[in-house]
């Protein structure tokens, strides 16, 4: 059986939300949603797991903190001890308050950059990558829900289509692969 892909378009995020809730409650699996902006509360409805990006970011920031601590110790204390403001104590701990701003900045730097790079890699959004959204209008003001027959083997394609049409569909395109 060929895999049929339904691209269901909505023109309002609330309509999309209601449709997703209605379809999921009937046992339909939604593969993905393409939206110009994050729709609050949609993720749990269509069964998207919570992102682990925050955990990754925390780990990047902690790495930054450690690197900055090692760095300040190496540059300012060990390799070439610096006397700034009359504090040549040759001790990292006693000079620590002076290093806090740079440790903080470097933690933020690593956390932010690590998070952005991870996000881009994970979503395949590097420069020159082909666009994966089915319709360019989803970057403007339309919302597209992708449903595939392979994931909904409990019902036939025509049944699925009938159910989808009960929602406030703006446009429906069906492709076969």
């Amino acid at each position, binding site marked *: 059986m060929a895999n049929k892909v339904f691209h269901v378009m909505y023109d309002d995020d609330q309509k999309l939300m209601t449709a997703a809730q209605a379809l999921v409650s009937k046992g339909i699996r939604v593969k993905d949603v393409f939206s110009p902006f994050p729709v*609050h*509360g949609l993720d749990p409805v269509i069964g998207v797991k919570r992102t682990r990006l*925050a955990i990754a970011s*925390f780990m990047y920031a902690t790495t930054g903190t450690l690197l900055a601590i090692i760095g300040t110790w190496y540059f300012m204390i060990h390799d070439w001890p610096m006397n700034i*403001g009359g504090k040549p104590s040759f001790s990292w701990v006693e000079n620590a*308050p*002076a290093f*806090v*701003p740079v440790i903080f900045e470097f933690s933020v730097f690593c956390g932010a950059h690590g998070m952005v790079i991870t996000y881009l890699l994970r979503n395949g959004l590097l420069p020159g990558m082909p666009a994966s959204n089915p319709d360019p209008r989803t970057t403007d003001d339309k919302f597209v829900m992708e449903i595939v027959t392979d994931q909904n083997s409990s019902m036939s394609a025509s049944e699925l289509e009938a159910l989808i049409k009960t929602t406030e569909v703006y446009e429906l395109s069906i492709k076969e692969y």
Partner: protein
Amino acid sequence: MKQDKLQFEIPAGVQKWSTICMAIGLVAAVGGWIVDHTDHHQYWWANLLINGFFYFAVALGALFFYALQYATEAAWSAQLKRIFEAMYGYIPVGVGVIIVVLLAGQFHIHHLYHWMDPDVHDVNSPAYDEIIANKKPYLSAWFFWLRMIAYAGVFIYFARKFREWSLQEDAVGGTELHYLQYRKGAVFLVFFAVFSSTMAWDVLMSIDTHWYSTMYGWYIFAGMWVTTMIFATLALIWLKGLGYFGSVNDSHIHDMGKWVFAISMLWSYLWFCQYMLIWYSDIPEEVTYFQTRYEHYMGLMWGIFFTNFALPFYVLIARDAKRNKKFLMRVGAILFVSHFFDLYLAVIPGTNHAHETFTGWFELGLFIGFLGLFVRMFVTALSKANLIPVNHPFLNESEHHSI
């Protein structure tokens, strides 16, 4: 829409326990006076000032937050406004305790405020102190008391008026009273912006008269705000546990947790900014403050800083932690006590050295006594009005709050 219980009935346990707490406080106050052998019972007065200011700050922070919610037209918190109203009902009592301590200082019953002694301003006196004498224009009795009257007047006026308008809104509805409070909230914030700083200088910073810090007002303000948010969060969780606030969902709890987290970070930021600049420049006039603390309170000072900064940072950073009521309650309770000790450390070293006088039971007893009084006034005020502001224009939006 779910029908929420509107009338709060004070549980018998709270009546009993707040009375017991107040009794403990009274016993601690009397016992503390007897065992306190410092000059002029200085240590006793200092502890009264700490507790007086601490709970006054919790209440004043609530008034500030209430005005802030109106001025920023925040809707999510509309359901919770009665909690803040009940908290700022304590303001007149808090002002009273502080005024008693200041009056006792003015009449030389104690010497918490060195500058209140007229001899330090007199060139011919052996007690003449040039640094203090130079601050005479600001720290003169008439100007000081004028400021005190202004603070008391403004805070009590706005606390009474906001409560009045809020209760009136329950009765008549409409949006007129809402926009009135929106405007008055903005006016109050202007007063508060100046007074929160100058009040911290007058009541707390002037204890260390030789020293000054331009960060001090904000640092005290941040401590005030975080204790307010902790108390409100704990009260909300407690009330929800009793079956009130049925429409308050996890998103509200999450937001309250965010406030505790965020203002803890604000406090840490201000604390560290004040500390680092003084530490770096190392000017004798400025370092005196931390020198005294380094000599006698090294462990306490860093212990408080790391409790108030690292604890909320690491345990409240996660989304699930801020939605976990039990967890939030425990962390909040630790932070509340820790911020009390922060204020303790702001007052005690400038007045006397507590390593000679610290008893434990007296300080803690007084803290518990004031807590009992505060909680009793809080629940009493809560029981006197609808728990939910039924005619608040943002009420519906608040009930659908979802993040």
